[in-house]
C-alpha cells in the first residue's frame, strides 16, 4: 500500500464517465453531421408525408378531394361503423369545403374489432376505391351508418347494394371484395395506425402530429396555425 492508489469507486466513476462522455460525443457528432447532409431532401420528404417512417401516408392512401399543396396534411384513421367517426364526418366535410386546395385530407382505415362490420365496410369502400369511387362509398357508409351499424350479422350484402347503386362494375366489385389483397390493404392501414399509436377512432394526425382537439373551434385553429406556420 505504498503507492497511493485511487479508490475503486473513484476509478469506476472515472472509467464510466469517460465511456459515457465518448458515447455522447459520438452520437452528437453523428447527429450534427447527419443533420447537415440529410436535411434538404429529408425535410421535403418529411413535409410531404408528415413522417419519415412513411407509415402515416402511403403512396396508395386515399385522399378526399383533390390533393392540396402538401404543406398541411390531415390524416384521419377511421372506422365506418364508429359513431364518433360518424359524428366527426360533418365537421370533416365542412373543413374540406373551407380548406379546399390548402389541406390534404387523407383517410386511413382503422377497423375496430368490437364492430362486427368494421372490416366488411372498409373492404367494401376499398373495393369501390379500386373503381375510383372511394369518396362516394365513404360518404354512403356514413350517411347510412344508422341503418347497418351496431349489428352482429354481416352487412356485406347491404354494402354490395350501395356499390350497385353507385353504378359500379359489380363483377369487378365482387372480385375485389373476395380478393385477399383488398383485406390486406385494409389490415395494413390498421397496422400502420397501431404502429403510430392509434388507439381509437377517429384519430387525426396534423402534419404528422397526433391531434387532440378540444373543440371544433380548436380543431380549426390548429389547422389555421399549421397553414400560417
Amino acid at each position, binding site marked *: 500500500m505504498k503507492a497511493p492508489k485511487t479508490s*475503486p469507486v473513484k476509478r469506476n466513476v472515472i472509467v464510466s464517465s469517460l*465511456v459515457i462522455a465518448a458515447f455522447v460525443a459520438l452520437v452528437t457528432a453523428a447527429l450534427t453531421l447527419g*443533420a447537415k447532409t440529410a436535411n434538404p431532401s429529408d*425535410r421535403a420528404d*418529411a413535409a410531404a408525408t408528415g*413522417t419519415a*417512417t412513411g*407509415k402515416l401516408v402511403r403512396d396508395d392512401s386515399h385522399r378526399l378531394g383533390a390533393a392540396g399543396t402538401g404543406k398541411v396534411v390531415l390524416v384521419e384513421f377511421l372506422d365506418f361503423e364508429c359513431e364518433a367517426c360518424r359524428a366527426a364526418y360533418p365537421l370533416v366535410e365542412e373543413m374540406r369545403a373551407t380548406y379546399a386546395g390548402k389541406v390534404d385530407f387523407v383517410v386511413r382505415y382503422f377497423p375496430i374489432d368490437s364492430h362486427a362490420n368494421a372490416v366488411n365496410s372498409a373492404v367494401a369502400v376499398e373495393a369501390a376505391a379500386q373503381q375510383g369511387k372511394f369518396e362516394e362509398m365513404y360518404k354512403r357508409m356514413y350517411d347510412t351508418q344508422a341503418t347497418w351499424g351496431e349489428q352482429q350479422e354481416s352487412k356485406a350484402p347491404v354494402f354490395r347494394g350501395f356499390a350497385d347503386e353507385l353504378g359500379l362494375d359489380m363483377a369487378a366489385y365482387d372480385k375485389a371484395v373476395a380478393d385477399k389483397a383488398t383485406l390486406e390493404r385494409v389490415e395494413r392501414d390498421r397496422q400502420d395506425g397501431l404502429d*403510430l399509436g392509434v388507439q381509437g377512432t377517429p384519430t387525426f394526425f396534423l402534419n404528422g402530429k397526433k391531434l387532440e382537439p378540444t373543440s371544433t373551434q380548436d380543431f380549426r385553429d390548429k389547422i389555421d396555425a399549421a397553414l400560417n406556420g
Partner: protein
Amino acid sequence: MAETLQARSPVQTEAGTQAGRGTAWSFVLAGIVGLAAAFTLLVEKIALLKDSSYVPSCSINPVLSCGSVMNTDQAEAFGFPNPILGVAGFTGLLTIGVILLTRLTLPRWFWWGIQAGTTFGVVFVHWLIFQSLYRIEALCPYCMVVWVTAITAFVAATTQNVTSGRLGLPRRAEAIGSYAPSLVIVWLVLIAGLILVQFWDYWVTLLK
C-alpha cells in the same frame, strides 16, 4: 516475499468484503427493479390475453411499442410467457441479495448456482435483444429494464466469483472485480449504440 504477502492479505480481505457488499446490493436492486418490470409485463400480457385490442401502457410510438413485442412468438420462447421466468428469477435474485446483506458466507456450490442462474439470464436476454432489434424491430421499455437488470446481475455475480477465486482464473484476472460497475456501463453503452444505429432514422425524426 514475506513483505508482499503481508501487504497483500489485508488489502485482499478489504477488497473482498467491499465487493461482497457491492454484489449484495447489486442483486437486491437488480432483483427489485427486474421483478417490478417482469411483474408489469406479466400483468400487461394477461390484459392482452383477455382483450386482444388492449393497448399496453408502454406502446408509445412505432419504435417504443410493447404491444408489438409482446404479441410475438419470441415473447413465449419456452411455450409460456417469458415474464413468468422473470418473476420467478428476479424474486430468487432479490432473496439471495438480501441473504448476502446479512454477511452470511455461502458455500461454493451456492455461488456456482448463482453463476449458472445469472448466466442463463444474460444469455436469454441477449437472444431477446437480438430478436427485438433485428427481427421484431421494436423496443419494449419494460423489457429493456429487464435487459439492464439481467446484465447487472450477471456482471455482479461473475466479478464476485472471479475476485474470490471460485472460477479458478489467474490472479491477474481478479483485478476485474473492482471494475464491475464500469463493465456494466460499457456493456449498456454498447447495447445503447446498437439501438441507436438500428433505429437511427426514427430517432432523427424525433429531433425535427
